[in-house]
């Protein structure tokens, strides 16, 4: 642990945040498995993880409220935890939308792209975890992990166009289209949010 965080409360906050990132990794892995197996029941595990994520975020908030970290660091430390939790929320939304999709034939058309995005999300979560470790626990240069997150985010963004291009050729009813579009947007937004958290980590690294 870096010298700046010698206090007990600070250590607890960092351990809880690392736990939150691990929860995010698990949620992404379950989501990936559910997508690949086409098992909508597996998504219920993500709802459990989302509740656990909320709990951890609240614990982090109370530790900060008790006085963990110097005042100038507190907003970004909490924002980081809040954003990681919001990614888990987004994954839950995507899981819910996925379970509402009735048109299996449409899913089949975009299956390859969805699987690639899901795999990229897992990779990005693990790189985020690595960034967090470098920033708060081990110390070191964050640049490579941040670049990698940006490169992978761009790949996800490009895939969105590919998915929309394929879907727009199909005959889709209004509500079917809405559900599918929501699912795609939620899935794609996960990588955006991971990139935002990486930016906050980089900002915090600069402030330390």
């Amino acid at each position: 642990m870096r010298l700046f965080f010698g206090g007990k409360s600070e250590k607890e906050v960092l351990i809880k945040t690392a736990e939150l990132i691990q929860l995010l990794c698990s949620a992404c892995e379950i989501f990936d498995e559910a997508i690949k197996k086409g098992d909508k029941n597996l998504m219920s595990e993500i709802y459990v993880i989302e509740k656990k994520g909320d709990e951890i975020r609240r614990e982090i908030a109370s530790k900060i409220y008790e006085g963990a970290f110097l005042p100038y660091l507190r907003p970004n430390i909490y924002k980081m935890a809040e954003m990681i939790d919001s990614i888990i929320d987004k994954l839950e939304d995507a899981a819910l939308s996925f379970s509402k999709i009735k048109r299996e034939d449409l899913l089949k058309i975009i299956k390859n792209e969805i699987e690639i995005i899901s795999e990229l999300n897992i990779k990005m979560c693990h790189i985020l975890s690595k960034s967090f470790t470098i920033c708060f626990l081990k110390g070191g240069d964050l640049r490579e992990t941040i670049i990698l997150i940006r490169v992978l985010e761009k790949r996800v963004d490009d895939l969105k166009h590919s998915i929309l291009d394929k879907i727009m050729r199909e005959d889709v009813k209004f509500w079917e289209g809405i559900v599918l579009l929501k699912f795609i947007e939620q899935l794609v937004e996960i990588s955006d949010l991971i990139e935002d958290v990486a930016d906050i980590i980089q900002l915090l690294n600069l402030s330390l």
Partner: protein
Amino acid sequence: MRAKMSAEEVMNKRIESIKPDASVLDAIERITTLRIRSLVVEPDEDDVYGVVTVRDIVFKCLAKRLDPKQVKVKDISTKPIVCVEKSMPLEHVLNLMEKFNIARVFVKDRNKVVGVISLMDAMTAFLMHRVK
């Protein structure tokens, strides 16, 4: 350490393809919509995959003042594509790319193209390997 990475680990599984009889304008439309640089040309009666790149479109069609609506993709595509087995080490793949001065190689599993490795993919893979 880098030799341990295989083509399968590095490849991008996103393969966008186009029919050989499609027009160059169709290819331009797909390339710009999907924000990519090349399209795999599906096998014709000769059962061989091809590739059409932005470079092919510009030099073999547009720069020659040919009508992209009239020219077919198969007339400007490169055939056959350079393919490697998915188990091939990345080091060998890069040697191949350097030797033939090509920006991408395709990865096949038996006779099916299952991925593509561009220089950007190789760069990402090296970075990924470093941060592991």
